[in-house]
């Protein structure tokens, strides 16, 4: 039986388009020191460090974990770097949790970051390969045809993408760490924003952010001594699949469905819509809210958009999604997955501030990456599993 494990400390930076006030190391320290303070421990108490970020080409710095070894407190301790494309933040949290669950370490720090302003992620995502033609500009160019596929299959109205874009930005106004603070956002403003990759509009897209997130995880005997509430890890799950094969369902990949089934089985959840109180889902383009409601088996196939339409996913709905403002409001890519996991943990600790869902006891954190081919998820709870 795995060691019962909890999140005992969480920290994040103020996310912004450009954090030129800090170096990459400074950005990480900002999040990590907040996590340590929250966990009421010091660098000396940390047994191992796990660091995650998106592809090196996003900043043009090869293996930044080498020069960041001291900044993350890795010196003379085990240190690992994780990479699973856009889902990397989630996977970083899962690797850290696994080290405690396996009984290898007592207290592990995980840190994930991106300093997007230091280079050009869209350029890095638009490299042409010798066996294919350069057609795609950035992640939006890749996902737009898939979103169109979802709209065709589900009959999802155009308003849904707009509705999610507004909802998440309004939630972000309650989150002082969120990058975008669009106090005057309206559906009309989203509708009037430029169409970038039809059907994705500018305001239906995530921003490009600098930011970091950190968490301290600890085994039960340490976690139960904490003076603040902790988030108990009920289950973690990951899946991957090839980017391309004949007959692959790119809109609703098998990996997401397998991942969801296994996660709920491990967490003892039979009806996710009822048993989970809120979810923080990786939604880089607004249409992915309904898509992943289906991909996480929270909604029936082709019906996910009805959850958005009915207001169920709003902060005061029966299944709040992206209470923090989500990826649509802050997107330091490497950290984005860990921020989803952290928000789920903050919710069940009752420490989410103005965007707290009243009485949240069980929450889902979710990240995906690559060509919808990596999925990382966890369920955390205010009570032990």
């Amino acid at each position, binding site marked *: 039986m795995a060691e019962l494990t909890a999140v005992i400390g969480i920290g994040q930076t103020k996310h912004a388009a450009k954090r030129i006030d800090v170096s990459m190391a400074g950005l990480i320290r900002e999040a990590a020191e907040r996590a340590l303070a929250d966990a009421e421990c010091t660098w000396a108490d940390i047994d191992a460090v796990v660091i995650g970020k998106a592809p090196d080409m996003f900043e043009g710095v090869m293996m930044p974990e080498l020069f960041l070894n001291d900044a993350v407190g890795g010196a003379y301790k085990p240190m690992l770097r994780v990479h699973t494309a856009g889902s990397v933040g989630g996977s970083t949290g899962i690797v850290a949790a696994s080290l405690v669950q396996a009984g290898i370490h007592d207290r592990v720090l995980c840190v994930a970051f991106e300093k997007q302003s230091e280079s050009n992620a869209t350029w890095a995502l638009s490299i042409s390969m*010798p*066996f*294919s033609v*350069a057609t795609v500009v950035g992640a939006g160019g890749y996902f*737009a045809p898939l979103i*169109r596929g979802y709209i065709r299959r589900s009959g999802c109205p155009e308003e849904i993408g707009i509705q999610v874009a507004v909802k998440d930005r309004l939630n972000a106004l309650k989150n002082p760490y969120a990058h975008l603070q669009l106090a005057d956002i309206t559906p009309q403003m989203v509708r009037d924003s430029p169409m970038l990759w*039809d059907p994705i509009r500018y305001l239906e897209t995530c921003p490009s952010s600098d930011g970091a997130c950190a968490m301290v995880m600890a085994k039960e005997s340490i976690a139960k001594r904490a003076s603040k509430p902790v988030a108990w890890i009920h289950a973690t799950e990951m899946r991957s699949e090839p980017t391309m094969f004949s*007959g692959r*369902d790119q809109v609703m990949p098998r990996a997401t469905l397998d991942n969801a089934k296994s996660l709920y089985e491990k967490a003892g959840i039979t009806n996710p819509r009822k048993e989970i109180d809120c979810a923080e889902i990786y939604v880089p383009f607004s249409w992915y809210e309904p898509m992943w409601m289906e991909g996480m088996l929270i909604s029936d196939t082709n019906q996910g958009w009805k959850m958005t339409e009915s207001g169920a996913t709003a902060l005061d709905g029966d299944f709040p999604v992206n209470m923090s403002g989500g990826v649509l409001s802050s997107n330091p890519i490497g950290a984005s997955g860990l921020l989803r996991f952290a928000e789920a943990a903050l919710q069940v600790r009752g420490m989410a501030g103005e965007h707290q869902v009243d009485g949240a006891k069980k929450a889902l954190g979710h990240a995906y990456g690559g060509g919808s081919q990596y999925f990382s998820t966890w369920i955390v709870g205010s009570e032990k599993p």
Partner: protein
Amino acid sequence: MSDKKPEEKEGPVQVLQTPVRLEYVFSAGQSASRLLGAMAKGKLLGQRCPVDGRVYFPSRGSCPQHGVPLDGAPVELADKGTVATYSIVRIPIEKVPLELPYVTVQVVLDGADTVLMHLLKCDVDKVHMGMRVQAKWKPREEWTSSVENILYFEPIDEPDAPYDSFKEHI
């Protein structure tokens, strides 16, 4: 590395620009070698999976789903196909020979069971799923061993393919 001298300036140095440039050598291997060699002759060669018989184009030499080599006789494909899904792009990229806005498509070539990502030159208001399209090649004398011998796809005067015939590709 830039050989520019830093400008003398009052106040703190906040950011520096350090350009990085990289060229790499692609080892084509048997499969891409055959594909690119055929492209130089204006032919599109796919490869069939021995497990389920599906035809991959472009093929990377193995089936990602079954983990087996695609080493049977190559299958010659038409340069015509059906648009499975698409996007209209309104932000610029280098190397794309079309003016903004342009259309990116996932085309199922006749005889293939995979989608090919490419460009479509057409009136952007006319593009739709099921549209029949054909490759527009560079002039023959400019052909090289490159996928870029096909500049883009163009609509052709054929009735739309029925949704059921391509829906598994969207």
